[in-house]
């Protein structure tokens, strides 16, 4: 049998306790090993009753308690400390300490609570705090958003969802390999011929050299051009006027005489095309708001005591 009056002193001398304390300290110091993605528990967090007379938009009064302490206390209050992971941890501690080798799990759990491990064990405290965070962030079901909410998000994040400038052009290519030093002269002469002869974009490409990617771009964004022609070409083509022969524009492969058929300015994406991304982003935001709101109410409640 254990003499409970001597137990605390005896416990302090136990190497196992030292191990636990050190382990706990290490635990608290640990950096995130893998990304902690919340596990949504199958229970909902009970609402914190808001003080009636206070406006929620006001900043809550400062409390001396940390967020973790507030969350820990709330977890105990709603009985999370009775849950199986806590029981397992406390029983594990007791078995490690070998205080009562013959006791069953139930008895060891009771003894651990009597000693106060449920309040002092850093792993249990951390578990309860994180469990509260998850509960506070979790909704009661799948996140559902109205069209208006989705639309508002898109509008307020328009820059993030802008479509780029598109351009559609035909080019006559002059190969630096084939023409060597004569390339600039050839380009100037051919450009003059194209302009003077009003040669159409359909008829012009055979007057130059063959190009691996063909001569008609279709609708392309600047970033589509960079991979093959180079960034300088992509930048310059986007600035050229529509419906005339321009150039020569330099690329990594030579020079190009360019006819712009159409340019399309930047425009916001359609909601239908970015819906899944907005839903994910909004769900994350909603979880953050829920948690902040929950914490705020906890603080207010604490301050009003």
């Amino acid at each position, binding site marked *: 049998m254990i003499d409970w009056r001597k137990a605390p002193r005896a416990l302090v001398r136990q190497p196992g306790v030292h191990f636990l304390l050190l*382990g706990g300290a*290490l*635990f608290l110091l*640990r950096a*995130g*090993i*893998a*990304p*902690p*993605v919340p*596990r949504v528990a199958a229970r909902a967090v009970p609402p914190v009753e808001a003080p009636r007379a206070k406006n929620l938009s006001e900043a809550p009064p400062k409390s001396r308690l940390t967020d973790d302490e507030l969350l820990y206390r709330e977890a105990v209050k709603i009985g999370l400390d009775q849950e199986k*992971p806590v029981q*397992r*941890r406390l029983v594990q501690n007791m078995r490690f300490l070998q205080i009562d080798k013959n006791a069953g799990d139930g008895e060891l759990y009771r003894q651990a609570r009597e000693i106060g491990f449920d309040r002092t064990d850093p*792993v249990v405290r951390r*578990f309860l705090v*994180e469990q509260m965070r*998850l509960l506070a962030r979790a909704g009661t079901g799948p996140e559902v958003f109205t069209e208006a909410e989705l639309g508002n998000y898109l509008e307020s994040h328009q820059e993030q*969802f802008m*479509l*780029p400038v*598109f351009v559609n052009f035909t080019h006559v290519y002059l*190969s630096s*390999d084939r*023409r060597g030093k*004569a390339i600039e002269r*050839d380009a100037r002469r051919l450009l003059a011929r194209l302009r003077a002869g009003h040669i159409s974009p359909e008829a012009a490409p*055979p007057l130059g*050299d*063959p190009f*691996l*990617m*063909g*001569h008609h771009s*279709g*609708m392309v*964004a600047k*970033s*589509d051009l*960079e*991979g*093959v022609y*180079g*960034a*300088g*070409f992509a*930048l310059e083509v986007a600035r050229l006027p529509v419906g005339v022969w321009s150039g020569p524009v330099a*690329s*990594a*492969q*030579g020079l190009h005489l360019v006819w712009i058929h159409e340019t399309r300015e930047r425009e916001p*994406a*359609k909601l*239908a*095309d*970015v819906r*899944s*991304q907005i839903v*994910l*982003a909004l769900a994350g935001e909603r979880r953050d708001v829920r948690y902040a709101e929950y914490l705020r109410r906890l603080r207010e409640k604490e301050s009003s005591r």
Partner: protein
Amino acid sequence: MRHAAILSLSVLVLIPMLATAENPPPPAKLTEQRVGCENNQKLRRPLFGETHAHTSYSFDAVSLNTKNPPSDAYNYAKGHPIKITDPLGAQTRCAQLARPLDWAALTDHSEFFGELTMCGTSTAPGYDSETCQKFRANPGAESEVWGMGLTASTPQPPVICAPGNETCHQQSLTLWKSIQEAAEMAYDRTAACKFTSFIGYEWTSMPGYNNRHRNVIFRNEKVPVRPLSVFDTSNDEQHLWARLQTECLDAGHGCDVLTIPHNGNLSDGNLYTLPAGADKAYAVKRSTWEPLSEIQQGKGNSECRTGVGTTDPECGFEQLKYHNLNFVSFTRGTDDKPFAPNAFLRNVLKEGLAKEGTLGANPFQLGFAGGTDTHSALPGGTDEGNFQGLHGYQTADPQGLLSQVEFNPGALTVVWAEQNTRDAIFEAMRRRETYATSGSRPTVRLFAGWNLPEGLCTSPDFAAVGYDQGVPMGSSLRDRPADVTHGPRIAVMAMKDPGSQAPADPQPGSCAVYKPGADLQRIEIIKGWVDAQGMHERVFTVAQSSNSSLAGTVNTATCAPQSTNSATLCSVWTDPEFNSAVSAFYYARVLENPTCRWSTYTCKESGLDPFNVPACQQHLETYSNQAPAGGGLSPREIFSICCTMVPGPVVQPTEIPRIEQQRAWTSPVWYTPVVAAKKSSAKKSSAKKG
């Protein structure tokens, strides 16, 4: 001027013939709900991406102090700057691509998804287990233990996973969901189609350290409930395919998937082997599941190795000295056996032809892919001038030179697809219309046929004619028409990597390094064939820059490429040794001008110039010769490698070159004699009747 006139004349002559070249390839089948792309090229365009990258969701990346999750890796692939770990484990290093990728597949090891969740989430069961405590205390050492568990002939999950791996299965869902969400967030579903993400994972079979890994890549967002690991399937890839068949292809929700093997060079010949009793059905199944294989990645080249079934001098490129993933035992000198021929793809392709003769189908009809295998969440970080290291805190800067020097920044996969969407890219991979590059970004196009015009290089419609009168890279040649007496014609055209250029308005926190691309030096066609005398290969140079000298291609002071050779190369080549009774394959290898290897940049950063050996040695004397207190090499010993780099192509894998020729490899095209093809279909029909 005369040249231009001849050119114009030849174009005019070609025009009537090209008028019939209106048979564009069919577009990809749409399996997802999304808007089409503004940029939709019927004749397809090259999309640069990669198929092999790890983030902090891989157990071994965690052990290397990598803390960046998939969302960071996608941001990096899209050209945004991210912070990554430094040698001390702090997130201080800036990494950014000078040019974004068009697409990327992230492939974290599916083994230990559950364990990582459990050990990193205090609310998870098993968090307080001894396994997790050890992992948190020393992730490097513990993950090595986990990795060693994978080398068993029957891998077992850690004890925390409980019988049947059920706990870890359950916990793996957390990371799997997060992987899917990150991919969805990164995927551009607008008409701009700027970036495509693929959901995937790496299946990590490695019995006896012999690499049999596969990257599993899903076509769209419809994926199985949870990923499969070797703990679910054993080490046998057939079990993986069987489970993927049930849980993906037959699940009835639009799931589609393929697997890409990698690192034949580290498989000791175990990656491309046939099981006992392999038959035609197996061969067909294998080539369907695995249309591609990695030919190059950070941990070395798998095309070929000089002395292993080839005398090709270009097969010394980025070779590792190891036979398999047991790097430690080799450095202790316990591994000196010869390399297995089928550790290298060129030999495997020959083996495929031989097996086609006996089985009736080619099990190794493999196109080429490239990846980085980064464990630092840096997909596509292949620039030799800005290599950050493959392995977390083991950086490629002077501090980590020796830990990375035998590795390289990795490779890219380029697909020819009509638009930048999952469906279009996935189908390109499936039909093998891909080429791999050793990291640079040349554009390479190849068609093969019997009647391709010999003047195709001067045609304004190279691709239209290629598709109409031939087949693209990755295909099997059509039957030879009766009136054709010559061998197959291969038309291959390449354009130089345009390089990168600093934008006028760089993003805040930008740290990209910009540089021009290198000129092209030559195009080779590699032919392999099998006849009664055995397996053969021959390398034909089919196009070469008029300036054949490689002198002066690099500014040795700055490592800047010098423009001395070609911006484009093209050739229509007819096989002069064609034997219509013999199966063959052909692929193109495009070699750029030599440029500085990444290690040369790093040495220069340290004030040690590999191009100036006397000065290098003199400066090396200023480095401490004192070994660190904990053991290891002194700074002088570490950096002595800068002064001993070899000037030219490497033959011995222990040598590090100052410069090397970056390159591209097109997927092959295959020729099968009509008689053999008929025989195999006759066998099939008699088997059906029987």
